[in-house]
Protein backbone atom coordinates (compact mmCIF):
# COMPACT_ATOMS: atom_id res chain seq x y z
CA UNK A 1 0.00 0.00 0.00
CA UNK A 2 1.42 3.33 -1.01
CA UNK A 3 1.89 6.02 1.60
CA UNK A 4 0.21 9.37 1.01
CA UNK A 5 2.21 12.58 0.89
CA UNK A 6 0.94 13.45 4.37
CA UNK A 7 1.93 10.06 5.73
CA UNK A 8 5.42 10.32 4.25
CA UNK A 9 5.87 13.81 5.69
CA UNK A 10 4.72 12.65 9.13
CA UNK A 11 6.96 9.58 9.03
CA UNK A 12 9.94 11.55 7.78
CA UNK A 13 9.43 14.16 10.48
CA UNK A 14 9.60 11.41 13.09
CA UNK A 15 12.85 10.11 11.61
CA UNK A 16 14.36 13.61 11.52
CA UNK A 17 13.27 14.25 15.10
CA UNK A 18 14.83 10.98 16.21
CA UNK A 19 18.13 11.75 14.47
CA UNK A 20 18.42 15.39 15.49
CA UNK A 21 16.44 15.86 18.67
CA UNK A 22 14.30 18.53 16.97
CA UNK A 23 10.59 18.67 17.79
CA UNK A 24 8.51 16.78 15.22
CA UNK A 25 6.31 19.80 14.50
CA UNK A 26 9.32 21.89 13.43
CA UNK A 27 9.98 19.51 10.53
CA UNK A 28 7.73 20.89 7.81
CA UNK A 29 7.90 20.46 4.05
CA UNK A 30 9.23 23.95 3.38
CA UNK A 31 12.20 23.62 5.74
CA UNK A 32 15.70 23.34 4.31
CA UNK A 33 17.66 20.46 5.85
CA UNK A 34 20.88 22.43 6.00
CA UNK A 35 19.84 26.07 6.39
CA UNK A 36 16.74 25.73 8.59
CA UNK A 37 17.21 22.47 10.47
CA UNK A 38 21.03 22.56 10.70
CA UNK A 39 21.33 18.98 9.44
CA UNK A 40 24.60 18.16 7.69
CA UNK A 41 25.17 15.84 4.73
CA UNK A 42 26.12 12.87 6.92
CA UNK A 43 22.96 13.14 9.02
CA UNK A 44 20.91 13.48 5.81
CA UNK A 45 22.33 10.10 4.76
CA UNK A 46 21.29 8.57 8.08
CA UNK A 47 17.78 10.01 7.70
CA UNK A 48 17.60 8.76 4.10
CA UNK A 49 18.61 5.24 5.16
CA UNK A 50 15.93 5.09 7.83
CA UNK A 51 13.40 6.49 5.33
CA UNK A 52 14.32 3.76 2.84
CA UNK A 53 13.59 1.13 5.47
CA UNK A 54 10.36 2.75 6.67
CA UNK A 55 8.82 3.46 3.27
CA UNK A 56 10.40 0.49 1.46
CA UNK A 57 11.92 2.59 -1.32
CA UNK A 58 15.42 3.02 -2.71
CA UNK A 59 16.84 6.51 -2.57
CA UNK A 60 20.05 6.72 -4.66
CA UNK A 61 22.87 8.72 -3.08
CA UNK A 62 22.81 11.20 -5.96
CA UNK A 63 19.11 11.86 -5.39
CA UNK A 64 19.63 12.28 -1.66
CA UNK A 65 22.39 14.83 -2.24
CA UNK A 66 19.91 16.97 -4.22
CA UNK A 67 17.41 17.16 -1.37
CA UNK A 68 17.26 20.78 -0.31
CA UNK A 69 13.99 20.85 1.62
CA UNK A 70 12.08 18.21 3.55
CA UNK A 71 9.47 18.51 0.81
CA UNK A 72 12.04 17.44 -1.81
CA UNK A 73 12.58 14.22 0.11
CA UNK A 74 8.84 13.68 0.57
CA UNK A 75 8.20 14.16 -3.14
CA UNK A 76 10.97 11.73 -4.08
CA UNK A 77 9.72 9.05 -1.69
CA UNK A 78 6.10 9.45 -2.83
CA UNK A 79 7.24 9.12 -6.47
CA UNK A 80 9.53 6.18 -5.76
CA UNK A 81 6.81 4.00 -4.28
CA UNK A 82 5.77 1.12 -6.47
Amino acid at each position, binding site marked *: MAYTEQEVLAGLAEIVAEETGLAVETVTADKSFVDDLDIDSLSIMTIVTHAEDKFEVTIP*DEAAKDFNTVGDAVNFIVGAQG
Partner: protein
Amino acid sequence: MATLKQAAGSQFSRIYGFGAYRGENVVTNDDIAGPIDSSDEWIRQRTGIITRRRADADLSVIDLAVNAAQDVLNTTGIAASDIGAVILSTVTYFHQTPAAAAIVAERIGANPAAAYDISAACAGYTYGIAQADAFVRAGTAKYVLVIGAEKMSDFIDPTDRSISFLLGDGAGAAIVGPSDTPGIGKTVWGADGTKAGSIYQTHSWQEMGANPELGFPTLRQDGPSVFKWASFKMGPVALEAIDAAGLTPQDIDVFVPHQANMRIIDQLIKQIKLPEHVVVGRDIADTGNTSAASIPLAAHRLLAEGTAKSGDVCLQIGFGAGLAYAAQVIVLP
Protein backbone atom coordinates in the same frame (compact mmCIF):
# COMPACT_ATOMS: atom_id res chain seq x y z
CA MET B 1 50.98 -43.10 -9.03
CA ALA B 2 52.90 -41.15 -6.43
CA THR B 3 50.92 -39.50 -3.63
CA LEU B 4 51.99 -36.05 -2.71
CA LYS B 5 52.22 -34.84 0.83
CA GLN B 6 50.10 -31.82 1.73
CA ALA B 7 51.03 -29.42 4.51
CA ALA B 8 48.99 -29.20 7.68
CA GLY B 9 49.41 -26.42 10.21
CA SER B 10 48.05 -25.60 13.60
CA GLN B 11 44.38 -26.31 14.23
CA PHE B 12 43.96 -22.80 15.59
CA SER B 13 45.68 -19.45 15.24
CA ARG B 14 45.88 -16.30 17.32
CA ILE B 15 47.41 -12.86 17.42
CA TYR B 16 50.52 -12.80 19.61
CA GLY B 17 50.88 -9.05 19.98
CA PHE B 18 50.67 -5.63 18.37
CA GLY B 19 53.27 -3.06 17.38
CA ALA B 20 52.67 0.61 16.78
CA TYR B 21 54.25 3.65 15.27
CA ARG B 22 52.61 7.07 14.96
CA GLY B 23 53.87 10.08 13.09
CA GLU B 24 56.00 12.34 15.32
CA ASN B 25 54.13 15.53 14.53
CA VAL B 26 50.82 16.49 16.11
CA VAL B 27 48.75 18.38 13.54
CA THR B 28 45.77 20.27 14.94
CA ASN B 29 42.56 21.16 13.14
CA ASP B 30 43.58 24.81 13.24
CA ASP B 31 46.82 23.87 11.47
CA ILE B 32 44.94 22.59 8.42
CA ALA B 33 41.63 24.48 8.49
CA GLY B 34 42.77 27.53 6.49
CA PRO B 35 43.17 26.04 2.99
CA ILE B 36 39.79 24.27 3.25
CA ASP B 37 37.99 27.32 4.68
CA SER B 38 36.99 25.28 7.72
CA SER B 39 37.36 25.40 11.48
CA ASP B 40 38.31 23.28 14.47
CA GLU B 41 34.62 23.11 15.46
CA TRP B 42 33.45 21.96 12.00
CA ILE B 43 36.09 19.24 11.74
CA ARG B 44 35.38 17.96 15.27
CA GLN B 45 31.64 17.91 14.65
CA ARG B 46 31.94 16.17 11.30
CA THR B 47 34.64 13.65 12.16
CA GLY B 48 35.50 13.54 15.86
CA ILE B 49 39.12 14.31 14.99
CA ILE B 50 40.92 16.71 17.32
CA THR B 51 44.46 16.13 16.06
CA ARG B 52 46.12 13.80 13.58
CA ARG B 53 49.67 12.50 13.65
CA ARG B 54 51.95 12.99 10.68
CA ALA B 55 55.47 11.75 10.08
CA ASP B 56 58.59 13.73 9.30
CA ALA B 57 59.13 14.42 5.61
CA ASP B 58 62.31 12.33 5.45
CA LEU B 59 60.60 9.13 6.62
CA SER B 60 59.19 6.70 4.07
CA VAL B 61 56.29 4.33 4.50
CA ILE B 62 58.93 1.59 4.78
CA ASP B 63 60.46 3.36 7.78
CA LEU B 64 57.05 3.52 9.41
CA ALA B 65 56.43 -0.18 8.75
CA VAL B 66 59.85 -1.17 10.11
CA ASN B 67 59.23 0.77 13.33
CA ALA B 68 55.90 -0.99 13.95
CA ALA B 69 57.38 -4.37 13.02
CA GLN B 70 60.29 -3.98 15.41
CA ASP B 71 57.86 -2.96 18.14
CA VAL B 72 55.77 -6.12 17.76
CA LEU B 73 58.90 -8.30 17.61
CA ASN B 74 60.08 -6.72 20.86
CA THR B 75 56.66 -7.06 22.49
CA THR B 76 56.17 -10.71 21.61
CA GLY B 77 59.75 -11.88 21.87
CA ILE B 78 59.35 -13.78 18.62
CA ALA B 79 62.59 -13.86 16.66
CA ALA B 80 62.52 -12.16 13.27
CA SER B 81 64.12 -15.28 11.84
CA ASP B 82 61.01 -17.26 12.84
CA ILE B 83 58.72 -15.08 10.73
CA GLY B 84 57.60 -17.11 7.71
CA ALA B 85 55.73 -14.40 5.85
CA VAL B 86 55.47 -10.63 5.90
CA ILE B 87 52.24 -9.13 4.58
CA LEU B 88 52.26 -5.36 4.23
CA SER B 89 49.09 -3.47 3.45
CA THR B 90 49.69 0.01 2.09
CA VAL B 91 48.41 2.39 -0.56
CA THR B 92 51.15 4.94 -0.01
CA TYR B 93 54.25 3.16 -1.32
CA PHE B 94 54.94 4.77 -4.66
CA HIS B 95 56.71 1.95 -6.43
CA GLN B 96 54.97 -0.59 -8.59
CA THR B 97 57.69 -3.09 -7.77
CA PRO B 98 59.44 -4.52 -5.82
CA ALA B 99 57.08 -4.84 -2.89
CA ALA B 100 57.81 -2.75 0.19
CA ALA B 101 57.29 -5.87 2.32
CA ALA B 102 60.46 -7.48 0.96
CA ILE B 103 62.50 -4.44 1.98
CA VAL B 104 60.83 -4.35 5.40
CA ALA B 105 61.52 -8.07 5.89
CA GLU B 106 65.17 -7.56 5.10
CA ARG B 107 65.49 -4.54 7.39
CA ILE B 108 63.99 -6.35 10.40
CA GLY B 109 66.05 -9.51 9.86
CA ALA B 110 63.22 -11.71 8.58
CA ASN B 111 64.96 -12.67 5.32
CA PRO B 112 64.11 -15.00 3.54
CA ALA B 113 60.47 -14.84 4.70
CA ALA B 114 57.88 -14.63 1.96
CA ALA B 115 57.04 -10.95 1.62
CA TYR B 116 54.47 -9.08 -0.41
CA ASP B 117 52.20 -6.05 -0.36
CA ILE B 118 48.45 -6.03 -0.52
CA SER B 119 46.23 -3.21 -1.71
CA ALA B 120 42.94 -3.17 0.12
CA ALA B 121 43.24 0.34 1.56
CA CYS B 122 41.48 0.72 4.90
CA ALA B 123 40.40 -2.94 4.85
CA GLY B 124 43.99 -4.05 4.24
CA TYR B 125 44.90 -4.96 7.79
CA THR B 126 41.88 -7.22 8.25
CA TYR B 127 42.53 -8.71 4.81
CA GLY B 128 46.07 -9.43 6.01
CA ILE B 129 44.84 -11.08 9.21
CA ALA B 130 42.56 -13.29 7.08
CA GLN B 131 45.56 -14.40 5.01
CA ALA B 132 47.81 -14.88 8.02
CA ASP B 133 45.18 -16.98 9.80
CA ALA B 134 44.89 -19.19 6.72
CA PHE B 135 48.68 -19.56 6.34
CA VAL B 136 49.16 -20.61 9.95
CA ARG B 137 46.35 -23.14 9.87
CA ALA B 138 47.42 -24.49 6.48
CA GLY B 139 51.03 -24.88 7.54
CA THR B 140 52.28 -22.38 4.96
CA ALA B 141 53.99 -20.35 7.68
CA LYS B 142 54.37 -20.69 11.43
CA TYR B 143 54.44 -16.98 12.27
CA VAL B 144 53.11 -14.29 9.97
CA LEU B 145 53.84 -10.60 10.40
CA VAL B 146 50.94 -8.42 9.24
CA ILE B 147 51.60 -4.71 8.90
CA GLY B 148 49.35 -1.84 7.93
CA ALA B 149 51.53 1.16 7.12
CA GLU B 150 50.51 4.44 5.56
CA LYS B 151 52.19 7.75 5.04
CA MET B 152 48.96 9.40 3.97
CA SER B 153 50.53 12.86 4.16
CA ASP B 154 52.36 12.05 0.92
CA PHE B 155 49.02 11.57 -0.79
CA ILE B 156 46.95 14.57 0.26
CA ASP B 157 45.91 17.93 -1.14
CA PRO B 158 45.70 20.59 1.58
CA THR B 159 42.87 22.30 -0.34
CA ASP B 160 40.76 19.13 -0.58
CA ARG B 161 37.66 19.20 1.61
CA SER B 162 36.68 15.57 1.01
CA ILE B 163 39.27 13.39 2.75
CA SER B 164 42.72 14.97 3.15
CA PHE B 165 41.94 16.68 6.46
CA LEU B 166 41.08 13.31 8.02
CA LEU B 167 44.34 11.60 7.26
CA GLY B 168 47.29 10.76 9.47
CA ASP B 169 50.51 8.76 9.19
CA GLY B 170 51.21 5.58 11.09
CA ALA B 171 51.91 1.89 11.07
CA GLY B 172 50.43 -0.94 13.07
CA ALA B 173 51.64 -4.52 13.14
CA ALA B 174 50.53 -7.87 14.48
CA ILE B 175 52.09 -11.32 14.57
CA VAL B 176 49.79 -14.28 13.91
CA GLY B 177 50.89 -17.76 14.90
CA PRO B 178 49.74 -21.17 16.08
CA SER B 179 47.42 -21.55 19.05
CA ASP B 180 46.01 -24.30 21.25
CA THR B 181 42.65 -22.50 21.37
CA PRO B 182 40.65 -20.56 18.73
CA GLY B 183 41.97 -17.01 18.48
CA ILE B 184 40.77 -15.74 15.11
CA GLY B 185 37.20 -16.24 13.92
CA LYS B 186 36.18 -16.70 10.33
CA THR B 187 36.77 -13.61 8.23
CA VAL B 188 33.70 -12.19 6.52
CA TRP B 189 34.96 -10.15 3.62
CA GLY B 190 34.17 -8.81 0.20
CA ALA B 191 34.39 -5.90 -2.19
CA ASP B 192 31.99 -3.88 -4.34
CA GLY B 193 33.59 -2.56 -7.49
CA THR B 194 30.40 -0.72 -8.45
CA LYS B 195 31.50 1.76 -5.78
CA ALA B 196 35.12 2.02 -6.96
CA GLY B 197 34.54 5.71 -7.63
CA SER B 198 33.59 6.47 -4.03
CA ILE B 199 37.20 6.73 -2.78
CA TYR B 200 39.73 7.37 -5.51
CA GLN B 201 43.04 8.75 -6.73
CA THR B 202 42.63 11.99 -8.73
CA HIS B 203 44.56 10.63 -11.72
CA SER B 204 46.86 7.79 -12.64
CA TRP B 205 50.66 7.84 -12.87
CA GLN B 206 50.30 7.37 -16.63
CA GLU B 207 48.11 10.45 -16.87
CA MET B 208 50.63 12.41 -14.84
CA GLY B 209 53.41 11.20 -17.10
CA ALA B 210 51.52 12.31 -20.19
CA ASN B 211 50.58 15.62 -18.62
CA PRO B 212 53.03 16.68 -15.90
CA GLU B 213 50.93 19.77 -15.17
CA LEU B 214 48.50 17.48 -13.37
CA GLY B 215 51.09 17.08 -10.64
CA PHE B 216 51.26 14.33 -8.06
CA PRO B 217 47.92 12.51 -7.64
CA THR B 218 46.02 12.82 -4.38
CA LEU B 219 42.99 11.18 -2.76
CA ARG B 220 39.34 12.14 -2.88
CA GLN B 221 36.15 10.60 -1.56
CA ASP B 222 32.43 11.02 -1.88
CA GLY B 223 32.02 11.54 1.84
CA PRO B 224 28.23 11.21 2.26
CA SER B 225 28.07 8.06 0.09
CA VAL B 226 30.97 6.43 1.91
CA PHE B 227 29.42 7.38 5.25
CA LYS B 228 26.13 5.75 4.27
CA TRP B 229 27.82 2.59 3.01
CA ALA B 230 30.15 2.24 5.99
CA SER B 231 27.54 3.07 8.60
CA PHE B 232 24.72 0.90 7.30
CA LYS B 233 26.25 -1.84 5.11
CA MET B 234 29.06 -2.76 7.50
CA GLY B 235 26.75 -3.50 10.44
CA PRO B 236 25.41 -6.68 8.81
CA VAL B 237 28.98 -7.69 7.87
CA ALA B 238 30.06 -7.30 11.49
CA LEU B 239 27.05 -9.29 12.71
CA GLU B 240 27.88 -12.04 10.23
CA ALA B 241 31.44 -12.20 11.57
CA ILE B 242 30.15 -12.41 15.14
CA ASP B 243 27.75 -15.19 14.15
CA ALA B 244 30.48 -17.04 12.21
CA ALA B 245 32.57 -17.02 15.39
CA GLY B 246 29.68 -18.72 17.22
CA LEU B 247 29.01 -15.62 19.32
CA THR B 248 26.42 -12.89 19.81
CA PRO B 249 26.98 -9.14 20.28
CA GLN B 250 26.63 -9.72 24.04
CA ASP B 251 29.84 -11.77 23.93
CA ILE B 252 31.94 -8.95 22.49
CA ASP B 253 34.26 -7.17 24.95
CA VAL B 254 36.05 -4.80 22.59
CA PHE B 255 35.15 -3.20 19.25
CA VAL B 256 37.90 -1.91 17.01
CA PRO B 257 36.53 -0.65 13.70
CA HIS B 258 38.61 1.11 11.09
CA GLN B 259 39.15 4.63 12.37
CA ALA B 260 37.51 6.51 9.50
CA ASN B 261 35.19 8.90 11.27
CA MET B 262 33.83 8.97 14.83
CA ARG B 263 30.29 9.27 13.49
CA ILE B 264 30.67 6.05 11.50
CA ILE B 265 31.95 4.34 14.66
CA ASP B 266 28.94 5.59 16.65
CA GLN B 267 26.49 4.51 13.96
CA LEU B 268 28.07 1.05 13.72
CA ILE B 269 27.70 0.57 17.46
CA LYS B 270 23.96 1.24 17.03
CA GLN B 271 23.63 -0.98 13.98
CA ILE B 272 25.42 -3.93 15.62
CA LYS B 273 23.56 -3.24 18.89
CA LEU B 274 26.73 -3.60 20.91
CA PRO B 275 26.04 -3.59 24.64
CA GLU B 276 27.17 -0.78 26.94
CA HIS B 277 30.04 -2.79 28.39
CA VAL B 278 31.91 -2.95 25.07
CA VAL B 279 35.17 -0.98 24.99
CA VAL B 280 35.44 0.92 21.70
CA GLY B 281 38.61 1.94 19.90
CA ARG B 282 38.43 5.69 19.30
CA ASP B 283 42.05 6.35 18.41
CA ILE B 284 40.94 8.53 15.50
CA ALA B 285 40.37 11.45 17.89
CA ASP B 286 44.06 12.22 18.09
CA THR B 287 45.72 9.99 15.49
CA GLY B 288 43.43 10.70 12.53
CA ASN B 289 42.52 8.19 9.84
CA THR B 290 45.62 6.14 9.09
CA SER B 291 43.96 3.75 6.61
CA ALA B 292 45.40 0.22 6.93
CA ALA B 293 47.24 1.13 10.13
CA SER B 294 44.21 2.30 12.07
CA ILE B 295 42.91 -0.98 13.53
CA PRO B 296 46.18 -2.33 14.95
CA LEU B 297 47.04 1.17 16.24
CA ALA B 298 43.69 1.43 18.02
CA ALA B 299 43.95 -2.11 19.44
CA HIS B 300 47.54 -1.52 20.56
CA ARG B 301 46.46 1.62 22.37
CA LEU B 302 43.55 0.00 24.20
CA LEU B 303 45.88 -2.69 25.53
CA ALA B 304 48.67 -0.23 26.37
CA GLU B 305 46.29 2.01 28.30
CA GLY B 306 44.71 -0.97 30.07
CA THR B 307 41.22 -0.23 28.74
CA ALA B 308 41.21 -3.66 27.12
CA LYS B 309 43.00 -6.72 28.42
CA SER B 310 44.54 -9.91 27.17
CA GLY B 311 41.90 -12.54 26.50
CA ASP B 312 39.17 -10.05 25.62
CA VAL B 313 37.00 -10.95 22.64
CA CYS B 314 37.42 -8.22 20.04
CA LEU B 315 35.38 -7.51 16.93
CA GLN B 316 37.46 -5.76 14.26
CA ILE B 317 36.25 -4.52 10.91
CA GLY B 318 38.09 -2.74 8.11
CA PHE B 319 36.36 -0.96 5.25
CA GLY B 320 37.39 1.48 2.58
CA ALA B 321 38.44 2.07 -1.01
CA GLY B 322 37.37 -0.62 -3.40
CA LEU B 323 35.00 -0.55 -1.75
CA ALA B 324 36.53 -3.42 0.21
CA TYR B 325 35.74 -4.76 3.65
CA ALA B 326 36.70 -7.55 6.06
CA ALA B 327 35.61 -8.35 9.60
CA GLN B 328 36.69 -10.98 12.09
CA VAL B 329 36.46 -11.64 15.80
CA ILE B 330 39.79 -12.14 17.54
CA VAL B 331 41.05 -12.84 21.03
CA LEU B 332 43.28 -10.00 22.17
CA PRO B 333 46.86 -11.00 23.00
